[in-house]
C-alpha cells in the first residue's frame, strides 16, 4: 500500500515537472557531438543562438512544456539558416566571423525565439474565444433541455438541485 502511494506521488511529481528521459538525453548528447564535430567553434555560436530555448527549458515547469516546445521550434527555425551556412561553407574562421558579425543572424536567432514567445502569449487567448463560443452553444442546448424537463415535470426537479447545491 505504502509502496503504491509512493509510486503515485512520483507519477504526480513527474507529471508536473517533467524531466528529460534517458533516450532523449542520449539523442541530445549524440546530436551535440555531431554538431560539435561539424561546427567546431560554430557550435558555441549555435549554443548562444539557442540560449532563449535553454533558458525556457529550465523555467517552463508545465506538464506538456508547450512554451518550451514552441520557443524551441521557433528558435531552431531562426538558427537553421546559420547552421545551413556553416554546413555549406564549412566551419572556417572566415565564415564563422561572417555569420556572427551579421546582425541579421542574431536577429533571426533571437527574433524567432521572440516570435515563439508571442505565439505562446496569444494563442491561449484565441483558444479561449473559441472554447467559450463552443461552450456557450453547449450550454444553450442543455438549458433548452432543462427547460423541457421542468415543463414536463415541474420545478420540483430543481428542488433536489438546490439541496445538492446547499450541501
Amino acid at each position: 500500500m505504502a509502496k503504491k502511494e509512493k509510486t503515485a506521488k512520483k507519477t504526480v511529481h513527474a507529471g508536473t515537472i517533467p524531466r528529460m528521459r534517458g533516450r532523449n538525453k542520449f539523442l541530445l548528447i549524440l546530436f551535440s557531438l555531431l554538431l560539435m564535430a561539424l561546427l567546431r567553434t560554430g557550435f558555441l555560436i549555435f549554443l548562444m543562438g539557442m540560449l532563449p530555448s535553454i533558458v525556457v527549458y529550465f523555467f517552463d515547469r508545465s506538464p506538456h512544456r508547450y512554451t518550451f516546445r514552441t520557443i524551441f521550434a521557433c528558435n531552431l527555425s531562426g538558427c537553421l539558416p546559420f547552421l545551413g551556412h556553416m554546413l555549406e561553407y564549412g566551419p572556417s574562421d572566415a565564415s564563422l566571423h561572417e555569420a556572427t558579425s551579421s546582425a541579421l543572424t542574431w536577429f533571426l536567432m533571437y527574433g524567432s525565439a521572440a516570435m515563439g514567445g508571442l505565439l505562446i502569449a496569444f494563442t491561449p487567448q484565441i483558444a479561449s474565444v473559441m472554447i467559450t463560443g463552443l461552450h456557450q452553444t453547449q450550454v444553450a442546448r442543455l438549458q433548452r433541455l432543462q427547460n423541457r424537463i421542468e415543463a414536463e415535470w415541474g420545478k420540483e426537479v430543481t428542488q433536489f438541485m438546490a439541496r445538492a447545491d446547499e450541501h
Partner: protein
Amino acid sequence: MASPARMDTLDAQVLIEEQVDTGLRPMLENYRSPHSLGHDRKDELNKHLTLYPSRPLPQFNHPYAQAFAAEDAHSPQRSVYALVLENSIPYRLNPINELAGFVNPHLCTLHGAGTVHCSHLGESRMVLFLDQPTGQSLAEVIKAQGRLHEHRVMDFVLQPLVRALAALRERKISHGNIRPEGFFLGDTSVLGECISAPCGTLTHYLYEPPERIGCTPLGRGEANEKTDAYAVGVLAYELIYGLDKLKAMSREEFIRLALDIGCYNAFAGSREFSDMYTDFFRGVLTDNPNERWGLDQLLQWLDGKRFNMIAPSASKEASRAFTFMGENYFNRRVLAFQFQRHWRDTAKEIKHMKLDRWAEMSLHKAEMAERIERALRIAGDASTDKHVNDMMTRIISILDPAGPIRGVSLTLRPDGIGPLIASFMDESSSTELNHVLTMIETDVSNYWSDLDNYNKLDQNAVLWKLQRVRPYLKSRAFGFGLERVLYDLNPSLSCQSPLLKQQHILTVNEALKALDALATTLGPDTSFMDRHLAAFVASKTDMGKEIRLLDLQTIPALADNPELVVLKILAKAQQRNERLVLVGLATWAAMRIEKMLDEIHNRTIRRQMKQQLRKLAATGSLNDVLSAVVNREMAVQDHEGFAKAIALHQINHSKIERFQNPKLIEKQANELGGKLASTISNIILFITAMVVIGQTFGL
C-alpha cells in the same frame, strides 16, 4: 419522457396547465340533489305527526330529551306529546322499533318515531311521538297525599305496572327507568315511556339493585326484568312506607349498608311487613340477581300465590376480620366498596395487606386467594399507574364479583361502556374517557365476567364487541381508533361528524345521501378528512381492515393522504348499494381530488387526469372518481419518470456548470493555446528546415 416533437410545445403548456378547466365547479353549482335533507318538512314525521316547538311541556323533560306538544292527524282526539332526543347519546333503538304502534292499556302508545327536522333547533333529531299520560304521576300523588294504602298500591300500581312490564317482556324489552315520576294514575294506570333515555339514567339510585347501584348512571347498561322487579319493589316500598329515611342517608352510606346487611334488611330495618307484602319484598329485594324474583314470580304473586320466602340474612362471611383504615371488615363486598372509596391509599398498601392470606384463612376461599395473589403478582413491583389501577379493579372484582366493574373514578357494567364513551366524548372529559379506554385495553370486562355467573349472561354480546374493538383502539388509521370504538359500541348513535351531526344520520345510505345533498353547500372547500365520518361508515359497513392505497405506494403524498382514505371508505360503502347514484358527492370528491393531483409530477399525466374527472364525476360513482387517481400504472410511470427526470436534470446542471466554469475555460484555453502554438512553431520549423536543406544541398 415526452417525445421530441411534443417538447417544443411544452414551454407553452406549462403556462396553461395550471388553469385546466375541468368544468367541475359549474357542474356542482348547477347540481340539484334528488336526496332531500328533510328540511322542507319541518317539525313533521310521516306526514301525520306534527311537533309544536312553541308549546313546550317541561313536566316531561329530562336530561336526555325535551318534551313538546304534538298532534297525530290520524287520531286527532288523542293527546300526543313529542320527545326530542339528544343526538350525542345513544338511545334505545330496539325498544323504539318494537314499541312503534304497540298498544297496551297500561303503556304509553308510541305513535311514531323518526328523524324530524326541528325548526327551533335548526337541526334534525330523533323525535318520539307518544300518548300524553293522563292523571297524576305517582310523584305528585306522594307529594299531595303522602303514603298510599297497601291495597291501593296493589290495585292501582303493582297490578298494572307488572302487567305493563310483562307486555314489554313479550317484546323482549325491559323498562329500566321505573320511578314515581314515570307512572301515572288516571282513568287507567299507565307506565310512562322507557325509550327516551338509557336505562338507569333517570331513576334515583335507591331504585337500582346492588349490582348497578354504584354505577355511574350512563354506565349501568341495559336493564333486565330482575332489575325492573327490584325497582317495582322499591316503588311499592316508597308508596307504602316512604323513602325519606333512606334518602336522608348519603349514597355511600346506603351502599355500604346494603352491601353489609343486604338490600332487603337495609330497606326493612326493624319493620315487619304485612303478610300481603312479606313475600313480595323478600322476593324482589334479594341481593343475588339469580335468586331475585322475575316477572313470572311477580305475576304469580299478584294472582294470589304465596311463596313463604325466607328473609335474606346479613351474612358474616369471614371468621376473622380484615383490618383496613383502622376498621374491621367481615364482609368482602363492603371491603371491595371501601377499597374503591380509598383507592390511592389502598393502591399504595395492597401489596403488603396479605389480602390473599385473609381470603384463604378467614374467608376459606382458596380459589379467591389464588386469584388475588396472581393479580398482585402480575402487577409487579415497578408498576405504572395504569397497571396498578388495573390490578385494583381486578382485586375489587375478585372480592365482589356480583358488583359492577370498579375503576379509579368510574363504576360501570360492560354494556355501559359505550354510552359512557359517547358521553365523555361529547363533554370532552379526557381523563374519564382514558379510564374507560384503559378498561377496554386491559380487557378487564372479560376478567370480571369470568369471575362468577351473577346474571352476567346478558353481557356476552357486549363482551364479544369489546374484544373485537380492542385492536381498533390502537389504530390511528381513519375508520378506526376511538371513534370506531364509539360507533361499534353504540349502534344507535347518530353520526357525530361535524358535517352530518345536524342531519341525525343513522345509516350509511343516509350518510351518503346527506353528503350528496350537502355537496353544493359544503363542496369543494370542505375536506372529507373527518375521523367521525370515516369511523361511522367503517362501523356500519363492518370494515375490519385498514384502508391502504397500495396502488399509490410510489407517491407517498397520495398514499398517506387521509382524505383519500376517507373517500375510499365512502366509495366502498357506496359499492354496497350500486343503485345509489351520487353525482353531487362524486363531483365534490372530484374537486378535492383535483387539488390532490398536484402531487402527480408529470404535467401531461396530471392534465389528462384532470380532464377526465368531470366525465367520471357525472357517473355518480365515487369509485370511478377515485380510479382517476388510484391508478398503479400511472403512479409507477410518474414515479419512475420523475426519478429519471431528476437524474437527467442533475447531469445537465453539472454539465452547464462545467461549461461555465472560468477556471476550466482558462485551463482548456491554455492547453489548446499551447498545442496550437506548438503545432504552428513545428510547422514553421519544418518549412524552415526544408528551405535550409534545399539551399544547402542545392535541391
